[in-house]
């Protein structure tokens, strides 16, 4: 191994091969339709890379991809969705070092702390993978009614959810808001952290290799304020998770109201390390109730 390294070092002037950080839309990695990019810096001001600067049109393309993916993803068995979420965890585990490096760069935290965040993010996928086939039992059930009817309620996914990922937790926070949305059969258009988008792009690379159907998760990088209004007012977006929307949240909620879009408001500063419970699953579910007459 050391011989090999020496041999490589001996090659004079080998050029580095830096990665182009692109969007993740419909299972592909396109550059922004606008052709623009935005410089990304570490907290200490060091230049890291350029990320794609998504435009409103990219947001629209992402919604189209998410809408197309919704029906087949929701129609998968809950068990199968659980398997796929587990597979995402497996793929992240295999790229642990890569993710840890991205978190160190993005947050400027010590390496061990970044590794803890990666572990927690992997565990978060496992957590929600377990929930996929249990949500219906916990949130649905038979309802007592005063009449000769069987009456049962079951939760169903809302549809296309625009997720504004937390700004200050680019990996663990991102996974914590994304996993509960897709676990129940929704599809997502994620607007990654504006200041630290690179871990989201690395996550997209793991998603693309983990049996997740194209379009179920679409990730946009760039300026949140550029794409947020178009997503919030889009008639084909069924719900918004405004967790990372910051000062834009009130305006976005107002825009969402014009097209009857569900909204999850940003709460008080969340602790991404704590066990999440059901609080991020239920806002993106609809309840279907079926009445059936009994007797002859």
């Amino acid at each position, binding site marked *: 191994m050391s011989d090999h390294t020496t041999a490589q070092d001996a090659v004079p002037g080998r050029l580095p091969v830096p990665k182009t950080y692109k969007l993740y839309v419909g299972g592909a990695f396109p550059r922004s339709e606008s052709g623009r990019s935005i410089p990304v810096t570490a907290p200490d001001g060091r230049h890291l890379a350029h990320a794609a600067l998504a435009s409103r049109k990219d947001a629209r393309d992402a919604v189209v991809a998410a809408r197309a993916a919704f029906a087949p993803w929701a129609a998968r068995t809950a068990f199968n969705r659980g398997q796929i979420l587990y597979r995402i965890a497996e793929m992240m585990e295999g790229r642990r070092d890569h993710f840890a490096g991205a978190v160190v760069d993005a947050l400027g935290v010590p390496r061990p702390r970044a590794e803890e965040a990666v572990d927690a993010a992997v565990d978060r996928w496992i957590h929600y993978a377990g929930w996929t086939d249990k949500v219906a039992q916990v949130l649905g059930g038979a309802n007592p009614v005063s009449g000769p009817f069987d009456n049962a309620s079951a939760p169903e996914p809302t549809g296309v959810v625009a997720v504004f990922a937390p700004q200050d937790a680019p990996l663990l926070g991102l996974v914590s808001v994304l996993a509960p949305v897709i676990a129940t059969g929704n599809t997502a258009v994620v607007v990654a952290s504006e200041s630290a988008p690179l871990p989201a792009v690395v996550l997209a690379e793991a998603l693309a290799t983990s049996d997740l159907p194209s379009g179920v998760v679409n990730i946009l990088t760039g300026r949140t304020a550029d794409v947020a209004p178009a997503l919030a*007012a889009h*008639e*084909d977006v069924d719900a918004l998770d405004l967790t990372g929307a910051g000062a834009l949240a009130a305006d976005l909620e107002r*825009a969402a109201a*014009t097209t009857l879009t569900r909204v999850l408001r940003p709460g008080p500063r969340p602790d991404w390390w704590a066990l999440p419970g059901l609080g991020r699953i239920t806002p993106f579910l609809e309840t279907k109730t079926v009445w059936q007459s009994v007797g002859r």
Partner: protein
Amino acid sequence: MPDTVATWTAPGNAVLRASLDALPGVDEAGVHARVAALATRSVKTSAKARAIDLAVRMVDLTTLEGADTPGKVRALAAKALRPDASAPDVPPVAAVCVYPDLVPVAVRALRGSTVGVASVATSFPAGRAPLEARLADTRAAVASGATEIDMVIDRGAFLTGDYRKVYDEIVAVREVCARSDGEPAHLKVILETGELAGHDDVRRASWLAMHAGADFIKTSTGKVSPAATPDVTLVMLQAVRDFRAATGRQVGVKPAGGIRTTKDALRNLVLVEETVGADWLDPRFFRLGASSLLNDLLMQRAKLTTGTYSGPDHYSAD
């Protein structure tokens, strides 16, 4: 163009072949580069609004499935008359395009309107039936009230070099498009470019169809892939431009199949404007054969008027 092509009358096959083969070859790389350059043209705001309305007026709203029912055709006709129920200012489309047996249903649903009834005929889409059967097919559609006939050429005959047969059949179909009681049905000739051997063939077939009396030349049936590629549309537009210069008669073009988005439609309009000019930017001379395109046009129109992107849930699936 060579004079022989411009001035012939009922020639024999040898003359036809000599004339058509004398047409200059298509510079495929040049066509491709031209299309790519024009595809970058950006049409925005008020220009886009006008282009969308023009594209809506050019749509031949089409349903050509084995599972078509009278009910589906009536629904399509209602949509043709008033494409967006919530926006009465959207103009009606150019025509509804159906199979011959459903023409009476469409005619009844569209009576008194400006929307035409187009019928595919001549054993669409393959055209592999005896000429008598194909003519009977056309007669039935015309008798039922179709205002436009979309015929397919015999690609087999064309590819074997029997241009005379193709020519005679177009002339024969054109004759049965005539009506004793009024305007003849407009004849659109489908070249099915996806089955022809390259752009040179498209150019030859276009000239052949125009000489035989086509009112429109149409790219495809929609049943063969590739259908209406922008490259083929450009070659056909050049053909109608040169044909008018040579003969004075203006023939229309109809790309059909594979045009699904507003962006595709606008690129087609740019091709028309830049190749043949504004004379063709009219539903009488340019049509878009499509079914799913209309909803995308309506969604883009809604975006321009309301400022928010719309979703397919708000439009009828056809």
